[in-house]
């Protein structure tokens, strides 16, 4: 064999090998299901890995007085390791990489997790504290599919409007401060860095432009999405920065780089300068209702069930939801916290006014059948265009 022939033989071999490798990597199963729920529990595995929003799994390392993980570890012998995430999209991708037993998912991630088979149905009979959960949170579209429960509700709350009281001494009561009147504070407006923020614009449009006929901010047809995108593009000119890392927003409000924008109660609780205030604007708000779910490939399913049961117990549920600044899911949790009224805990009417995050899909969530709605990938593309 001469040199050229040998070389081409080597290249052919390499090419075949790489195609083989690529095919092996690229083969993905279509939609898989998460298997069936457990019938009974076994021995604890000794550890459990949890993926959650910041402030949901506190073991005292952030603040020595804030700790509900140690009690769980003592009771069950399951050592908790946890990771926090900033957006539902991040959570969804982390779950797809595997390695987590339990996730606290909002409605814009939970259905996707179920659809891609990342989470397993949960047998609520195995959870003693499930009976103590508010009925209006059970069997909802974001935590159940076809009557099968995929988790236990954790807590719920609204995405609030935060403002600097030095800049707005008279206070605010409308999202117009970040939309129509945003230019007054150009460069100091902040917004949540996720396609799901488009729903915030839709909520504002529901109140200000009824002609558009938006009845659910997560089911927008082409025209309605375009209107929301236009509103957000106008807002973009005034936005100083988008946030998804809650620590970044805390710092931006403390230094004054941001003076008005969307926020969570936990951020308001963490701002140390004391010149910020939060409000639930009159137009209503988007919000979240979170669910503890168990991974279909969980390595420690028994510890996972134990965690779900523990975190829904009145005392732990009260601690965790009070720290994050949201209403608890457990009826008895209000015995352990004194601010339940501020969050309208158990007030089913109030809870129904919050537009809980859910994943936009092509079949309109508001029941329209004459049009196709824009799905989440369309929102993601629109979000890139808005940021420009």
């Amino acid at each position, binding site marked *: 064999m001469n040199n050229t022939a040998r070389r081409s033989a080597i290249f052919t071999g*390499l090419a075949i090998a790489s195609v083989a490798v690529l095919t092996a990597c*690229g083969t993905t199963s*279509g939609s898989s299901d998460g298997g069936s729920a457990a019938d009974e529990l076994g021995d604890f595995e000794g550890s459990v890995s949890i993926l959650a929003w910041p402030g949901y799994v506190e073991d005292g390392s952030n603040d020595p007085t804030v700790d509900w993980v140690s009690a769980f570890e003592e009771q069950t012998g399951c050592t908790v390791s946890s990771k926090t995430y900033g957006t539902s999209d991040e959570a969804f991708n982390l779950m797809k990489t595997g390695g987590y037993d339990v996730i606290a998912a909002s409605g814009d991630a939970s259905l996707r997790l179920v659809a891609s088979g990342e989470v397993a149905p949960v047998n609520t009979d195995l959870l003693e504290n499930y009976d103590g959960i508010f009925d209006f949170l059970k069997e909802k579209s974001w935590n159940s599919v076809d009557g099968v429960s995929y988790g236990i509700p954790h807590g719920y709350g609204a995405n609030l409007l935060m403002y600097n009281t030095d800049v707005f001494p008279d206070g605010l009561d409308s999202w117009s401060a970040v939309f129509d009147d945003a230019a007054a504070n150009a460069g100091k407006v902040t917004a949540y860095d996720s396609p799901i923020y488009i729903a915030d614009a839709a909520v504002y449009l529901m109140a200000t432009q009824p002609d558009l006929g938006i009845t659910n901010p997560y089911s927008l047809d082409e025209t309605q999405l375009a209107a929301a995108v236009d509103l957000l593009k106008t807002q973009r000119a005034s936005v100083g920065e988008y946030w998804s890392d809650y620590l970044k927003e805390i710092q931006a409000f403390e230094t004054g780089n941001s003076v008005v924008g969307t926020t969570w109660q936990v951020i308001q609780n963490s701002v140390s300068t004391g010149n910020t205030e939060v409000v639930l604007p009159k137009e209503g708000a988007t919000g979240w209702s979170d669910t503890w779910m168990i991974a279909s490939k969980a390595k420690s399913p028994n510890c996972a069930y134990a965690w779900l049961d523990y975190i829904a117990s009145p005392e732990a549920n009260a601690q965790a939801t009070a720290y994050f600044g949201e209403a608890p899911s457990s009826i008895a949790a209000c015995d352990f916290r004194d601010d339940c009224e501020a969050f309208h805990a158990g007030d089913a009417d109030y809870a129904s006014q919050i537009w809980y995050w859910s994943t936009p*899909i092509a079949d309109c969530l508001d029941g329209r059948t004459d049009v196709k709605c824009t799905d989440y990938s369309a929102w*993601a593309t629109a979000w890139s265009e808005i940021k420009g």
Partner: protein
Amino acid sequence: MTSNAASPLIERAGIPPHRHTPARRVSVFLSQHARARLGLLLSAPLLWLGLVYIVALAALLVTAFWSVDSFTGEVSTTWTLDNFVTVFTGAVYQAVTLRTVGIALLVTIVDIVIALPIAFFMAKVASPRLRRILVIAVLMPLWASYLVKAYAWRSVLSEGGLLEWLLSPFGGQTPGYGIPAIVITLSYLWLPYVILPIYAGLERVPDSLLEASSDLGAKTGRTLVSIVLPMLWPAIIAGSIFSFSLSLGDYITVNIVGGANQLLGNLVFTNVGAANNLPLAAAIATIPIAIMVVYLTAARRSGALESL
């Protein structure tokens, strides 16, 4: 032949006979088979290179031709050109590409302008002792974490931060978070990568040439333009490749100090992280690769790479 010639040596006093250990046998085998020696030496790094660079790059390019199921997030392996059509026709991608290249060029220019005098001082003016100290000083920031440095700039550039405190007596104020902040931070981060090649290049310019130039009556500027710069050109190109390519792919600094702006790296990041659209992210990632190929080809054409 060899064994016959060698045998009298064994008889000689003072030299112990070869011991036939397995290691010795392997060593004898390798010394007689040059190809096997080369193969053993290179197989591990070549396998690594092949796996990391070629397979990873190929996987990236192939992924760009696939699509993703928007609800379940599963990648479906049917071939489509949609992603490339989106990337090449979408106004947002064109705008972001232009912004990214602009920032990368600006960072490169800023770095070269700062690096040239520093490198010249280090190579030609400073005493050997001072030179060593300066090299360490230039390298020092590389020992600190990238994130720490980026967050340090976030606090320096914030409202009421260090920069504002420094500038306010002169009526200036901080540029805030945005494109100027990105350029400042990236220039700072990549500066050592630009100084070092230029310093190495300047060290190779013989002092005798500078003296000869001045003996022949050339002024400082003339010497720099006609003697130093042509010899330094490859080193400057080498430095610029570092700062340009590193800026082209950065997204973390942009997230930290970039305000509401996004660069190509952020588009890739959000498409992998937020939108879960790996194929589109792969298609976007081919843009900086293509730009770097063009840049390296241009650098090669100019002959700068050959004299490195």
